């Protein structure tokens, strides 16, 4: 595995001023995926956006990894429901016009 597109966890911890234990906690909860390259932990760059969201929830609202997992699950359900509502609204318009 090459380092391309992967960012060292140590760099992220310095940048976001967070403890390695928090990143590890997020990994333990299945929220991110840490991979080992040459015995050092890395995160794929595509996970940076969701990671930032998790860190904001942790730092701004003092929510731990389990709480973040719960929030993410609820937000996913919320998003699905919004999509469904949009579809149903669109269908309702068909009957409203009759």
């Amino acid at each position, binding site marked *: 595995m090459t380092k*391309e*597109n992967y*960012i060292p966890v140590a*760099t*992220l911890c310095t*940048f*976001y*001023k967070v403890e390695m234990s928090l990143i590890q906690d997020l990994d333990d909860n299945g929220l991110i995926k840490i991979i080992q390259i040459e015995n050092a932990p890395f995160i794929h*760059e595509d996970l*940076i*956006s*969701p990671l*930032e*969201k998790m*860190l*904001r*929830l942790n*730092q*701004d*609202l003092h929510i731990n990894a389990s709480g973040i997992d719960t*929030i993410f699950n609820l*937000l996913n359900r*919320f*998003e699905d429901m*919004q999509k469904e509502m*949009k*579809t149903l609204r*669109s*269908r309702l*318009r*068909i009957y409203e*016009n*009759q």
Partner: protein
Amino acid sequence: MDFIDYYKTLGIDKSATEGDIKKAYRKMARKFHPDVNPNDKAAEIKFKEVNEANEVLSNPENRKKYDKYGKDWKHADQYEQAGRQQGYGGGGNQQQNPFGQSYQGGGNQESDFSDFFGSMFGGAGGRRGNPSKFRGQDFNAELKLNLTEVYKTDKRTLTVNGKNIRLTIPAGVSDGQEIKIKGYGADGVNGGPKGDLNIKFNITNDTLFVRDGKNLYKTLDINLYTALLGGTITVDTMNGQVKLKVAAETQNGVKVKLKGKGFPVYKKEDEFGDLYLTYQIILPKDLTDQEKDLFVQLSKLKTS
């Protein structure tokens, strides 16, 4: 600038202690934080207001000025004003801001501008002995189109961050649909790959059809005589007029399907949905005496 009652924003009164402010702020932040209110502009605005109120009231100096000067409190001290301008959004002292990272509000979180990559753009990467490669920032754009414009594949030139991007919009895109154009974001850092361009379509219906995915729906008025005796009518579709035979004794509310006259299927060349027409029979008005007589005769025929 209108006076903003920061106490009211946080739901506290003027005698609130520092602890009360902190408590009220945290409660409001949990409620309106943009990460737990995705795509909610109202929550985002409220969150900014709450932050602004907290920045002022949680700082005893600023609070004192605010209590004394009200809306002009910022002008009380030019030096402080300069300091506050370094803050985010409505203007606040970064040190007072409990949020370590500035929030990039709204939109799809996965495609938000990243603080991390943003920092790298700021030159942090250049300070390293062995500079890392980073992917460029994603650009987000919203494109407003009419339904008629997305009936056919169209080419557009968009200007995103000063760059002209030629874009092919495939026929059949949906309202709210997002497409990602790989490599059309900002340049990567230190030779890293380019970011992506995320475009969200905002489609306004400028037609009399109702769209549900690939199918279109419309209520069509037909007169009583055509409904009873049958006939041929001309119907407007998205791609011109078609002649349609109406069967004799067609009932009100009957639906007919015009196969392939609906909306194009996204990214499926030459594949179309259907157009569903619901007949609405219009009864004649202002009947002449002769017409009335004839209807009376008809009704007698039916009841006899």
